[in-house]
């Protein structure tokens, strides 16, 4: 019996196991344990949450491998870590550590302003951000086995995540009603690989799992994204920048499972303490926007 590792089925498959779950940003082993205890289906190990990256400015890079390894030791759930867009050596290092998923993330400072990583070259699966169907298809074309909306990380403002989810879902609905002869023009206009456009039309959904990310701060935000049609939710700064992280984390986990049950959503939204201090994205200068990173 011959076995194969690092296959497309394996890479996509782990994302399928994360569906209906919440992936939480953590900066140390203690936060990772709080996240696991609250019911996170995975954690994202990084040195600074996006809200702090924004506040600190400067260049944001891959986290210290020592810190990632400590988090991997601390929890039994999958551990993800971020590398810079186009920085395939950071990705090689993360793969060698044995992280379960790599996020090629616009939250870090891009290392290449033209090219993303050729993710098919790796055994470890990748997740990437997208604002629209074209960006999603290009990333999947490069080998991303999971997608997420970009939203606007570190703001606590869900509006950009909604915009991106609506754009992607709207395009998928549009594809359903298109004739096959219209698909090449769709591919051209959206900068999307033709084969993936065809596959998306046939499936009636994105060919890989698609999560929401970037600005989710409350159980209601998480349920909103689920009702818009995403498969699960990333919460970055929203948990550990809030008044009572453990309680908020558990509440968001419940809100993603029971996203259609308003009475449960009301129950879990009670007495959560202070949400993270928000940052209105409408008033944000273009230079501070992270979502525009990625090509």
């Amino acid at each position, binding site marked *: 019996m011959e076995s194969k590792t690092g296959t497309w089925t394996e890479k996509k498959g*782990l994302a399928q196991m994360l*569906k209906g779950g919440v992936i939480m940003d953590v900066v140390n082993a203690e936060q990772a344990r709080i996240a696991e205890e609250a019911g996170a289906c995975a954690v994202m190990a990084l040195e600074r949450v996006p809200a702090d990256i924004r506040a600190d400015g400067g260049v944001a890079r891959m986290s210290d491998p020592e810190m990632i390894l400590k988090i991997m030791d601390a929890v039994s759930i999958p551990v993800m870590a971020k590398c810079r867009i186009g920085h395939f050596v950071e990705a090689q290092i993360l793969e060698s550590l044995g992280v379960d998923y790599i996020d090629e993330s616009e939250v870090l400072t891009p290392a290449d302003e033209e090219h993303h990583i050729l993710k098919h070259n790796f055994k470890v699966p990748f997740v990437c951000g997208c604002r629209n169907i074209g960006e999603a298809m290009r990333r999947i074309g490069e080998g991303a086995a999971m997608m997420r909306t970009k939203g606007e990380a570190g703001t606590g403002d869900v509006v950009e995540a909604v915009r991106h989810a609506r754009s992607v879902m709207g395009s998928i609905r549009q594809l359903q009603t298109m004739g096959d002869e219209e698909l090449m023009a769709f591919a051209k206009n959206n900068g999307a690989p033709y084969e993936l456009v065809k596959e998306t039309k046939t499936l009636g959904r994105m060919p890989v799992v698609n999560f929401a990310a970037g600005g989710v701060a409350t159980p209601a935000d998480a349920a909103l994204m689920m009702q818009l049609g995403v498969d699960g939710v990333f919460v970055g700064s929203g948990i550990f920048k809030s008044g009572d992280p453990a309680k908020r984390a558990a509440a968001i986990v419940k809100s993603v499972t029971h996203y259609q049950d308003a009475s449960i959503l009301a129950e879990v939204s009670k007495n959560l303490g202070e949400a993270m201090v928000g940052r209105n994205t409408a008033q944000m200068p273009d230079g501070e926007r992270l979502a525009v990173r990625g090509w």
Partner: protein
Amino acid sequence: MAKDSRYEVGKEDNLRVENRIQFLFSALYSLTMKIGVLALQGDFSEHISMLKKIGVETAEVRLPKNLDGLDGLIIPGGESTTMGKLAVAYGLMEPLQQFGKSHAIWGTCAGAIFLSKDIGRDQPLLGLMDIKVQRNAFGRQVDSFETDLEIDELMKATGTEYPYHAVFIRAPIIESVHGNAKVLCALEDGRIVAAQEGRLLATSFHPELTGDMRFHEYFVSLAK
């Protein structure tokens, strides 16, 4: 002698055809059945689409009341810690344990962990199957693998002769089976990856990620 062995082969073929026909009849019966899938977290929608393909009515189970009227239940892949915490929070542990005493339940990967009695660490378990399970037994995601399995019981029950292609993702192994639990399949090195105890079924791998319907058909036949 030669004549006898030819006769034996013919007999075996007949038996296979008979099994296949019997199985298809039972599959027909399954059209009247309703199977739930625990939808707290994980790849429950993949199981639901497999069940729909074999013509079974389905339901998502998030709260105890969703168990009413079900003939069987699948606990999908996902994170067992997440499922356990949500099951405790919404009062599902006791109703699931009661359900398992009189109905078929099948756990895949995280579901197999959740069904087991012992995993050597502290997290909520249904304890319905007398098996000991080890989480993430093959390593991390880069060690996840696909392979072909010869599962005699499955091939016999479904009247088929080809191996089962199995997808393992950060998979657990069944360290040992006890009491009435029996091994359904082990890897060449002896590690157990599928077990059955009456109408309870546990697999380390994910039949819901393949196009092969046989495991779902087999489970539905147990749920009758």
